[in-house]
C-alpha cells in the first residue's frame, strides 16, 4: 500500500539535476534514498469521510519495488475478498460477488478506489521522470512543530501528471510531511499529509497518510498502517492474476 499510494505519488520525485536549485535536488534525492526497500508487507486501515458519513475499510498487502508490483486484499466484512493487483501500469480488481477479474481502464480510472479520495489513476502513477521538473527551494516552514524544507517542483513541459508540486520535507527525517499537487492553471487539486512518524530499524516511517481531493470539500481519506515491515519475504504468487480469483 505504501507503494501504491506514497510511492506512486513520490517515486517520480527523483533527482532533478537543476543547476539553479541544487539544494532542492539534494533534498529530493535524500527523500528518495529514504524509500529504498525491496519488498514491503503491511496491514492498514482506511477511513473515508464524506460529508458526515465515514466508511472504514481494512486491508493487508504486499509490494515489490523493483517491478512496480503490488497486491492488496480487503478484510472488512462489506468488502471482504476484494483484491487489487497492480502490475507495472495495469490495475486489476477482483470482486468476489461477481467472481470476476476486471481491468480498470478508461473513465473508471478517474473514480476513487473503494469510494476514497485516492483515484485509481493515482495508484497507477509510475512516471519516475527525471528532468521533467524544475525544482527550487522556497522558504522553510514548520509542520507540527518540526522544521521543514519547502521544495517546489515545476513541470518543464505539459506532459506530466501535475503541473506543479510543493513538497514539505522534514529536515531531520527527510520524509515529506506535506505534498500539494497542482493542476495546470494553478489550482490545488490534492494534498497529502504524512504523520505519526515512527522509527523502524534504521528508517523513519510515517504511519498515517491523509489525502484530500480539494475539489470535494467535505471528504478526506486517512490511511493508517497498523503493521508494516520492509525487505521481508513476500510470496511471489500474489503478484499473479491467477491468485486474484482464489
Amino acid at each position: 500500500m505504501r507503494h501504491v499510494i506514497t510511492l506512486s505519488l513520490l517515486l517520480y520525485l527523483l533527482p532533478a539535476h537543476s543547476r539553479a536549485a541544487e539544494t532542492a535536488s539534494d533534498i529530493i534525492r535524500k527523500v528518495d534514498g529514504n524509500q529504498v526497500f525491496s519488498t514491503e508487507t503491511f496491514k492498514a486501515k482506511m477511513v473515508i469521510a464524506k460529508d458526515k458519513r465515514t466508511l472504514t475499510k481494512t486491508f493487508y498487502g504486499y509490494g515489490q519495488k523493483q517491478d512496480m508490483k503490488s497486491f492488496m486484499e480487503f478484510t472488512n466484512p462489506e468488502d471482504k475478498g476484494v483484491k487489487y493487483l497492480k502490475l507495472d501500469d495495469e490495475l486489476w480488481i477482483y470482486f468476489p460477488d461477481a467472481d470476476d477479474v476486471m481491468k480498470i481502464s478508461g473513465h473508471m480510472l478517474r473514480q476513487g478506489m473503494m469510494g476514497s479520495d485516492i483515484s485509481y489513476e493515482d495508484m497507477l502513477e509510475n512516471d519516475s521522470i527525471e528532468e521533467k521538473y524544475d525544482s527550487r527551494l522556497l522558504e522553510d516552514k514548520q509542520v507540527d512543530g518540526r522544521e521543514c524544507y519547502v521544495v517546489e517542483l515545476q513541470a518543464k513541459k505539459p506532459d506530466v501528471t501535475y503541473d506543479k508540486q510543493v513538497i514539505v520535507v522534514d529536515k531531520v527525517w527527510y520524509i515529506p510531511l506535506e505534498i500539494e499537487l497542482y493542476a495546470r492553471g494553478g489550482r490545488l487539486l490534492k494534498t497529502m499529509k504524512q504523520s505519526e512518524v515512527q522509527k523502524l530499524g534504521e528508517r523513519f516511517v510515517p504511519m498515517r497518510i491523509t489525502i484530500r481531493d480539494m475539489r470535494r470539500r467535505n471528504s478526506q481519506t486517512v490511511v493508517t498502517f497498523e503493521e508494516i515491515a520492509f525487505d521481508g519475504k513476500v510470496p511471489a504468487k500474489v503478484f499473479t492474476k491467477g491468485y486474484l480469483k482464489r
Partner: protein
Amino acid sequence: MTYLFKLALKNILRSKIRTVLTFLILSFGVGIYILFACLMAGFDKESIVNVIDFETGHYKVRSANFDEDQPYDKDGSLANAMAVKERLRNLDFITAMTERLMFLAEIDNGVDSIPVVAIGIGPDDNTVFNLKKYVKTGGLEPGGTIIGKALADDLGLQLGDVTFLTFRNQQGMYTSVEVLITGLIVTANPQVNKASAFINLDEAQQLMNTRKVTEIALKTDAFFKVKEYEPKIKAALSDVDARVYSWEKLSEDFRALMTMKRKFQNVLVLMIMIIAIVGIINTMLMSVFEKKREIGTMKALGFTDKEVQNLFLVEGALIGVAGGLAGLVLGTLFNAYFAFVGFDMDAMFGEEDFGMPVMGVVKSVWLAGAYVNAMVFTLVASVLASYYPAKKVTKMEAMECLRTVQ
C-alpha cells in the same frame, strides 16, 4: 348476397342498444389506436429531429482509432481534420460542416465534482446543429460554458456562477480551469442534461494542448438519403484516417429502444382490440342465440347452412365496418387535438423524462398507415369474431333451432 346483406343490416338495426354498445367499444378502440399510433409517430419524429439537431447531425466523421465503447477515454481524435474537410468540400450535397472536440472532464463547485463530457464547439456549430433550440438561458461566450440545467441544479449553480473544469490534457497533465456559466441547456436527453459542458472550440484546444478535433459533423441537403450519400462520403475519405457514421448508425441504440417501446405499445393496442373483438363475439353470440328460431325457420325455408353462416358473417362485418369507420372519425378528432395543439410533455410528466428523447410540446402526425391498419384489422377481426358464432349456427339442425322455446 345483396339479400343477405339487407337481412343482416335489418338484424343489426333491430337490437339497437347492444349494437350501439358494441359499435361504441369498437369505434373507441379504433379511435384510441389511431390516436396512439399517430401520437407515437409524432414522438418518434420529434425524437429523430432532436437526435439529429442536437447530437448526431447527418453524419459524423471520426478517426479510425475512435473507441465507440469508451468514447473520449483515449486519444481518438482525427489526425488530419483539414484533409478531411478539403475532400468533403468536393461533395456538393454536403451543405455544412463543423468541428467538435470532446473530452472527459470533471466539473466541480469546490464541494462536489461530477464527471462530464466537455464539448468544444466552433462558431459555425449552428450550421449543423441547433443548440440554440435547447439553450434555455444565455449562450456561449468567451471563457464561458453552457452546461445542462440538471447538472447545474445538482451542483447548486446558476447562470453567472463560476465553476471548474478539471481534466487531463492530451499529454496527460491535470488541467483545471475556471469557467463562467454563461448558458443553461435543457434537452430531451438526460445524459446531456446531467453530464455535458459546452465550451468554445479554440479554448478547448488550448486547454487540451492540441490542435486536433474529435469529430467533424456534417449536414447534407437530405438527411434521409443515407444509402445514397454514405458510400460517397466514404469513398471521398478512403485515403485519410476517417470513419463515417450516419445519424442512423449513431442513433442505433436509441432507435432500438424506440422499436422496443413500440412493441410494448402494440401490446397495449392489441389489448384494446381484443376487448373490442370480445365485444363483437359476445354480440354475435347473443344475436345467434336470440335468433335461433329464425335460423330454424330460414333453414326450413331452404336457406343452406352456408347462407345462414354468411348472414352472420356479414352482420359481424357490418358492425366492424361501421365501428371501424366511426373509429376513424373518432381517432381523427382525438388526433386533431394533438396534431394542432400538441402534447405537453412538461405539463404531463414534469421533470420526469421516462427516457423519452423528447420534451416540450410534441405534436402528433397524421399516419395514413394507422388508418389502413385500423380498418383492415377491424374488418378482419370482426369477421373472424363472427365466425365462431356463425359456425355454431351452421352445426345446428333446423329442428333443434325450431324447438327452442323463447
